[in-house]
């Protein structure tokens, strides 16, 4: 099957291009636009029949015109194996919600997985563009182009006063959510993040842990995104978000430098301990893996550990998720079996780099 690579490759091609701009801290950027098609009821309350009709209509219309945005492939959620669906979620190509309603939902993906269009998510269409590093403007321009293309073929539910009409009123207006994933170990260790967060929230932006909430985020990975979608133009939202993310990045860099200056040995000890544990342990929980990988990634960024690519963090974070472990095992795993597999995967991956 041509679509096999969507499930077998842990790292999307767009991620393999090496670190993007500000790649020592910003791992990836994503812009998504929520759109609905005029006349059709929104998916959440739509009947089975209406959902099925919309799915057929939207995916065939878009697929027929897809040369303009590079070839797209459609995957119907109910035709995939449970593992394959889980892998798509872990790669952020589809949301858990899309899978919950898998009877009438699909995703259209381009070859390098930088474009994902979910059909019958909470809204009829969720157009999403992904890129590595910090590339908010580029990512928005790409999403804007995708949106122009979709709009040329479908009529959107749009109100001249309220903008794009979405199933949830928290998305109405631009329907846009832009986010940057950042790795902030030094701000977490020095307890600075908890002081920065309120200021960011006041600007209408949200910071979330990728695993968990607030300062308890695993792997020190955070997503900074806009909350407000009504009242500001897309360009202003992107510009404001960019400004704040850049400030956070500067602060993280500064915190890393002062850690190196004031407690270099402590820092080295932590980084190398984690490195040793990853290289030799035989069982590892998701939580421990996330935190150890964060330490090692910091070590790589600070040039304490040499000869390992920084991609190891993003890559192993994905590879050690339960869906991927099961996909590779070819069977479902108990927690203990998964912990053993996880430790194996990490050891092998680290050996490859040595």
């Amino acid at each position, binding site marked *: 099957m041509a679509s096999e690579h969507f499930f077998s490759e842990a790292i999307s091609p767009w991620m393999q291009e090496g670190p993007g701009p500000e790649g020592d801290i910003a791992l990836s950027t994503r812009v998504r636009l929520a759109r609905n098609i005029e006349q059709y009821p929104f998916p*959440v309350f739509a009947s089975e029949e209406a959902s099925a009709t919309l799915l057929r209509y939207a995916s065939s219309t878009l697929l027929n015109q897809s040369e303009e945005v590079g070839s797209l492939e459609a995957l119907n959620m109910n035709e995939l194996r449970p593992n394959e669906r889980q892998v798509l*979620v872990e790669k952020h190509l589809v949301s*858990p919600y899309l899978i919950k309603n898998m009877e009438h939902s699909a995703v259209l993906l381009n070859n390098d997985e930088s474009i994902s269009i979910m059909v019958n998510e909470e809204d009829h269409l969720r157009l999403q563009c992904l890129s590595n590093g910090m590339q908010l403007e580029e990512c928005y321009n790409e999403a804007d182009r995708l949106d122009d293309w979709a709009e040329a073929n479908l009529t959107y539910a749009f*109100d*001249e006063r309220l903008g794009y*009409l979405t199933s949830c009123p928290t998305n109405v207006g631009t329907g846009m959510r832009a986010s940057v994933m950042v790795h902030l170990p030094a701000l977490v260790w020095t307890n600075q993040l908890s002081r920065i967060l309120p200021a960011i929230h006041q600007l209408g932006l949200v910071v979330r*842990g990728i695993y968990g909430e607030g300062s308890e985020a695993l792997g020190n990975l955070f*997503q900074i995104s806009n909350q407000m979608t009504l009242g500001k133009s897309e360009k202003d939202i992107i510009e404001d978000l960019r400004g704040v993310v850049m400030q956070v990045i500067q602060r993280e860099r500064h915190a890393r430098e002062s850690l190196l200056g004031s407690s270099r040995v402590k820092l080295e000890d932590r980084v190398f301990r984690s490195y040793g544990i990853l290289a030799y342990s035989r069982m590892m929980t998701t939580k421990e893996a996330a935190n150890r990988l964060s330490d090692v990634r910091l070590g790589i960024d600070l040039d304490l550990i040499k000869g390992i690519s920084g991609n190891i963090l993003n890559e192993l974070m994905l590879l050690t998720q*339960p869906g991927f472990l099961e996909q590779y095992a070819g069977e479902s795993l108990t927690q203990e079996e998964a912990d053993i597999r996880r430790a194996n995967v990490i050891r092998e991956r680290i050996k490859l780099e040595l």
Partner: protein
Amino acid sequence: MICQNCGQRPASLHYTKIVNGAKTELHLCEECAKEQGESSETEHSFMSAAGGYTIQDLLSDLLNMDQSNTAGNAEKKQPKKAARPLTCDNCGLTYKQFTKTGRLGCAHCYHAFESKLTPVFRRVHSGNTNHTGKVPKHRHEKLHAQRELDEKKRQINILVQNEEFEKAAELRDEIRTLEKQFQGREEDS
């Protein structure tokens, strides 16, 4: 600590949710957390594993809070007068259903529930009630053209500030042409 959900496996995820000062703690094992995560819907898959309190939950709470506040007053004024519940006449969704899920049923719901939604927009979108961003070309040509014009005017100001007068002059000519077209269309309609 043992997982609160299954009571069997050790809890590996611990989180605290604070809503209006009321603190709830949850301790789950990875498997139960995953199950819960799959049933709660969020932007990023990983976050859902922690059962994050999403903006949609917050919205739903806000809406329900609104109702419980006003419901008390309304009952006193109009005892047992069964008014027809506020309903969207296109898709049949009641306002009450909306407050439970935080999701609307169709585009028309925005008009049907307008009076109730406007204050919600203010709260969720920092006081804003009007869209100022992108407009589709198709079916909204006039507004689309207007936005394009506004954007060019914004750019011309930046060019003038940066003393890039040649580029500014070019843009000014473009704006004039656009404005003429725009007026022509106004007169036609």
